[in-house]
């Protein structure tokens, strides 16, 4: 039973991890928490739904197109809403993302309605592998693989590519980076697009487990945020690890505490945030970053 709880925890944890990755990318470059992350993913998932249901495109094409949409959406948000902000503080930018979140939520409710929908997904959530009595669904296996490979790709991207290093430089010192010839504004747009895309992947993987409606990402986003804090807001492997750990903690907590455990299952995420902030504010894998004055 323990093995089953851990495996199921890791499966949902991968979805949290993807959202955490998306948040971390933005936080890494601009120290902004993007509260519209979930709604951007939700709208992108609805785009995939629309392409599949109304235009009957093959799944792969719909998947790719919705990711392209997500990228454009991310860039647009940065370009139209964040960039014009005059002498923005980080807090001001966060409030802008909150506003954008509300706009997207409203638009989704108006365009697609509040009724639950089912996203036709090629890998059914209910076909499973049974390994010595431990059951894992095909979809979960794929989610796990996708999450891990995205994490590795992003890690390599930030570490070894010129663009990735430019991104890092932008985060550490914007003015110096600009003086070195890095077009920091483009870097920002790029990271928002990238983050939005990864968020959309998590939305597309979550929709078949739950149901598709405008509230799709509301709670997963909070879990993703908790995972990111747990792993360290600036560390990509940390985000992935945080998601996995959170998923497992949730499951074990619910199981071993019985009825009360189930009542507080989702609250565990917040307890985790508080504990981490008390004892290791920089998270599990991030180095404590002290700004010198």
């Amino acid at each position, binding site marked *: 039973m323990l093995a089953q*709880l851990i495996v199921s925890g890791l499966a949902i944890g991968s979805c949290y991890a993807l959202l955490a990755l998306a948040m971390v990318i933005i936080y890494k470059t601009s120290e902004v928490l993007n509260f519209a992350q979930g709604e951007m993913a939700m709208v992108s998932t609805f785009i995939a739904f629309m392409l599949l249901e109304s235009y009957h495109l093959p799944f792969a094409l719909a998947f790719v197109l919705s990711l392209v949409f997500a990228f454009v959406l991310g860039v647009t948000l940065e370009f139209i809403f964040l960039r014009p902000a005059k002498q923005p503080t980080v807090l001001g930018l966060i409030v802008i993302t909150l506003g954008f979140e509300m706009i997207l939520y409203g638009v989704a*409710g108006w365009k697609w309605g*509040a*009724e639950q*929908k089912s996203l036709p997904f090629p890998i059914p959530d*209910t076909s499973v592998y049974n390994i010595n009595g431990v059951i894992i669904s095909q979809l979960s296996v794929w989610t796990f693989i996708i999450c891990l490979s995205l994490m590795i790709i992003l890690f390599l991207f930030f570490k070894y590519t010129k663009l990735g290093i430019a991104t890092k430089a932008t985060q550490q010192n914007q003015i110096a980076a600009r003086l070195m010839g890095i077009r920091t504004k483009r870097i920002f747009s790029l990271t928002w697009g990238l983050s939005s895309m990864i968020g959309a992947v998590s939305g597309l993987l979550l929709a078949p487990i739950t149901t598709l409606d*405008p509230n799709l990402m509301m709670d997963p986003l909070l879990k993703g945020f908790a995972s990111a804090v747990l792993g360290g807001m600036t560390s990509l492997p940390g985000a992935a690890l945080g998601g996995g750990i959170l998923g497992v903690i949730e499951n074990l907590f619910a*199981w071993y505490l019985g009825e009360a455990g189930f009542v507080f*299952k989702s609250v565990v995420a917040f307890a985790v945030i508080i504990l981490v902030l008390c004892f290791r504010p920089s998270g599990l894998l991030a180095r404590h970053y002290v700004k010198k004055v």
Partner: protein
Amino acid sequence: MKLRKNVVLMIGVAMAVGLPMLLNCAKKEVGVTDNEIWVGTWSPQTGPAALWGSVARGIDCYFKMINDEGGIHGRKLKLLIRDDGYQPQRTVAAVKELVEKEGVFGFVGGVGTANGMAVKDYLHTSKIPVVALATGSKLFGDPPTRYLFALYPTYTTEASLLTRYAVDTLKSEKIAFFYQNDDYGKEGLKGAEDRLAKYNMELVAKVPVEIADTDLSSHALKLRESGADAVIMWLLPKQAAMILKEATKIDFKPQWLTSSTLSDVDVMYKITEGLWEGVIFDNWFELPNSDHPLMVKYRAANDKYAPKERWGAFFTAGFVFAEPFVEGLRRAGRNLTREKFVESIESIKNWDGGISHSVNFGPDLRQGTNSIFIGKCENGRAVRISDWMEMEQ
């Protein structure tokens, strides 16, 4: 000169006070004119519970049908819908606006337990009749209050009768209960526990779920571990769909039973990708696909007045909530007042003129219906499999 000024002033004051009074004379009662009755309702047209917004649009469709048939004693019904986004504080604002600014006669079919509770006292002290809130919470009909009429059988009644069906007809011996951890779920839980106590039985598992839960795998494992042969669910559609998927994954296949809130088989079958097949549910008014003569008529009204609305359970619910309201108006006659209206609703006894069963009100009775029937999802369609079952008093 001064005198003339004073006269002008006095005429002005007289007009300011007198004109509205003159206009008011034309009104028999607040919200009632010679050819209209103004009725208010609140519902979530936006936000997380917008799914239930169709209740209000169902009422509107029903009113349009009544109006085209000539209205009630020469008056047309006018429905004022306010969107509260399922937030009680917005319900309060909307209801106050409808009462104090628009001046509605009464309310019909407001959605939500917490939302109803938020305005219950205000409406009572303002002496404004409210008929049939769209919630099965026990908090509205008991203890009885003069101006508030509950129609929906309580969740406790529903769960009790559903459990009776599981034990008596399905011969279930191990029943588990999977519920949303709030008043809605707990009232259902109580109904099932009380009923089982009569058989000297107990639930083999009680598993709560929070709306915020994104992963129900551990819940499914717990239910499987209990060895239940039947699981009763008191949930929202999303969690119901999720638990069915999780249970299928771990090969747990009990008989699933659920409440009227999940009786929209078309939606449930679709979002569970067919896993809803065989699920048993209860309902307290005719199924959307029923061939009851009134349902045939209502479907025609749906096509005529609201062709874009799907003929689903919540839209139909609008009709059932509006029925006793309109019946009360009919009985009250042409000289309509709120007090007279309350008395005429109280005169409704064993009334089967609508799509629910045996509506009963009285001077001390504010819980309109106590009957349900059982339905089942067969080949993706809702099928009725029992006669009306009434709660023993």
